[in-house]
């Protein structure tokens, strides 16, 4: 049996990056919401993500590692072109990551400083990731319009992460904080809708390729399923958070699942937009792929180890199911 190895690795890389975006997305979203809670609520909010953030962030290392290993040519081009936003993202992730520890271990005004850096780091990393995505889909073209476009995507992704973070808090908290989180979720949903509207309006202006791919009848009619399903998922988040806010007994994971669906649908759209390119309009996955011997070596390891990773990740989420409390995780 022979595999189309670059295709397999494109799939693996996509899964790793989607896992990162969704998992660390809720961490970063909670980080950006931190200033909206009072001191005690902030401890609960951090406790709701503390046992998971480290493993969540590892999906980024895997995703970027897979680009490095499987598509080394693309890695150099992509992260060379995105050099400064990558530095900004990394510094944001560094500050956010160590702030988990410092904010509970530092004393006095240092504690406040690290709370602020937790927020700032989460925001910087989210904005940078969205900015990088905006640059990536437009093939790193120079010009002011492209920068504005990338900033729009950055702002939109921040809204998406806030939505994920808020719905995660709905699942992991109770009482007054949970009610607040339901409000944040609806607020995040508006933010996402605005972001999507602006990005959609701007896309035909900045990228002919993207436009052609999406508005090519009759393919368009099938493709329209994606935005329609996204709108349905958005309505689902809105309705379910409204019902939870009114105290109706529906599952508390309902809004989070809706937010998750929005991200998955957007990711499928993105994958469709890019394929078969790994660098837009310049380099296909087959042109960028590493030597088959290297790909095979990694594939064997991934096939053996990934099931274990999924199993113990599930085990960890099972251990920490239920509501988070302040002080529990210090």
């Amino acid at each position: 049996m022979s595999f189309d190895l670059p295709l397999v690795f494109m799939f693996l890389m996509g899964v790793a990056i989607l896992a990162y975006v969704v998992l660390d997305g809720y961490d970063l979203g909670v980080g950006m919401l931190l200033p909206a809670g009072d001191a005690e609520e902030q401890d609960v909010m951090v406790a709701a993500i503390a046992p998971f953030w480290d493993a969540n962030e590892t999906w980024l290392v895997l995703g970027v590692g897979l680009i490095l290993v499987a598509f080394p040519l693309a890695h150099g081009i992509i992260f060379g072109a995105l050099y400064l936003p990558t530095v900004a993202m990394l510094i944001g992730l560094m500050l956010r990551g160590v702030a988990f520890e410092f904010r509970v271990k530092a004393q006095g005004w240092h504690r406040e400083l690290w709370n602020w850096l937790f927020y700032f780091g989460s925001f910087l990393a989210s904005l940078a990731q969205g900015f990088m995505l905006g640059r990536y889909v437009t093939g790193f073209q120079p010009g002011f319009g492209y920068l504005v476009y990338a900033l729009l995507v950055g702002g939109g992704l921040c809204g998406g992460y806030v939505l994920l973070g808020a719905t995660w808090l709905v699942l992991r908290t109770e009482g007054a904080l949970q009610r607040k989180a339901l409000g944040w979720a609806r607020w995040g949903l508006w933010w996402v809708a605005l972001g999507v509207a602006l990005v959609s309006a701007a896309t035909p202006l900045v990228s002919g390729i993207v436009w052609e791919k999406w508005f090519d009848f009759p393919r368009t009619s099938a493709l329209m399923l994606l935005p329609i399903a996204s709108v349905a998922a958005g309505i689902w988040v809105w309705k379910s958070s409204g019902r939870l806010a009114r105290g109706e007994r529906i599952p508390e994971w309902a809004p989070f699942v809706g937010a998750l669906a929005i991200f998955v649908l957007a990711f499928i759209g993105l994958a469709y937009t890019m394929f078969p390119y790994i660098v837009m309009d310049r380099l296909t996955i087959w042109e960028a792929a590493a030597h088959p011997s290297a790909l095979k070596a990694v594939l064997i390891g991934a096939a053996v180890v990934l099931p274990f990773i999924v199993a113990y990740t599930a085990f960890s989420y099972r251990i920490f199911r239920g509501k988070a409390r302040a002080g529990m995780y210090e």
Partner: protein
Amino acid sequence: MDSATALTLARAQFGLNIAFHILFPSLTIGLAWILVFFRAKYARSGDETWLAAYRIWTKVFALSFAMGVVSGITMSFQFGTNWPGFMNRVGNIAGPLLAYEVLTAFFLEATFLGVMLFGMNRVPGWVHQAATVLVALGTSLSAFWILALSSWMQTPAGHVIADGVLVAGDWLRVIFNPSFPYRFTHMMLASGLVASFVVSGLSAWRLLLAPGDAAARRSLRTGVLIAAALAPLQIVIGDLHGLNTLEHQPAKIAAMETIWKTEKGAPLVLFALPDEDRQRNDFAIQVPKGASLVLKHDPDAEVKGLDAFAPDVPPVAPLFFGFRVMVGLGLLMLFVAWAGVWLTRRGALPPRGFLWVFAGFTFSGWVATLAGWMVTEMGRQPWLVTGVLRTADAVGQISEAQLGASLTAYGATYALMLLAYIVVVTHLAGGGAGPRAPSEPMAKGAAA
């Protein structure tokens, strides 16, 4: 663009990142196993003092681990941005080794760290113990893969040329390349020494403030015992590692010992000011025939000098001094550790003067480790992969302005993080384990 400046900046930036990063894994690899020991002792005895020691060192571990994780992510981007030539030429070998590190080590340690830190009252005691062991295993596995890659870059083996690029012909020979066993053992022992000196040093600091702290006394005793056992072992392994380097990278040894010219009965230089322009030493204090005796075990044997390898020779002064800092500090650490074993015998509290000495040696392992890494990495120059790829041929197209800006940003962030780290770790150690928060009752059977 001046490519020489860009190369210097790219190297400076990568060097800064990797030097900052290595501080934390070098502590956590060893500390993880010390935590396994404390946790097991508590499980066996039910003695709360062991639990107190476990708790305080878990806090230090968690903080150090987070520092290592966030600084390590930077690496996965810089391989491609700073050294695209590296991935293009040897990516088919380096890539899979890095991928295996992520797959087998990073997820394991990150996931079970969550269980270890926050799960003590949520899972049975044996599961919590297992989580502690898995975290330690993860840190060591991570060291295994990255040392395999690092050693392969020093002494490449097992590769073939296929379709114009380097690919692995025999993965076992790639991983277990000639210098790997020495380098891996040397690094694991170094990590044990870093961790044991941090544990004994910070415990000494605690005892200066609170001489009655039982957990700090046990930690101090544990730290000095481990250090006293590992230090002599490290000297033996270090010597074997040196002989291995002489066999595979003789130019590195020639630079470390400032042997400028090939000669019979070469002297062992104890101290000198190497002058690279004139290829000679000033103010040299040396033992006649010493280098021949140490390196070849024969006082009249011929030792190859730098002239035999020119122009592909590493910079001499950083290697010469770096090596002496590492060895000198290693010997001092051996002496301090052995003194510590004597002074803490039968539960004794060492005199305050000695506690100050231990406290002063807290981060000595870091200095020795950085010096050692500097020697081995700069000693590989001008090669990035010995005999295969030159560093200058691997550098990327990132502009000087971008490199300079990012170097400054990283430098400022690292300075902030390191300062906060040392302040908080010292404060944590000084405050002891503290009373357990009432909201954190131990689960029944957690000690099992």
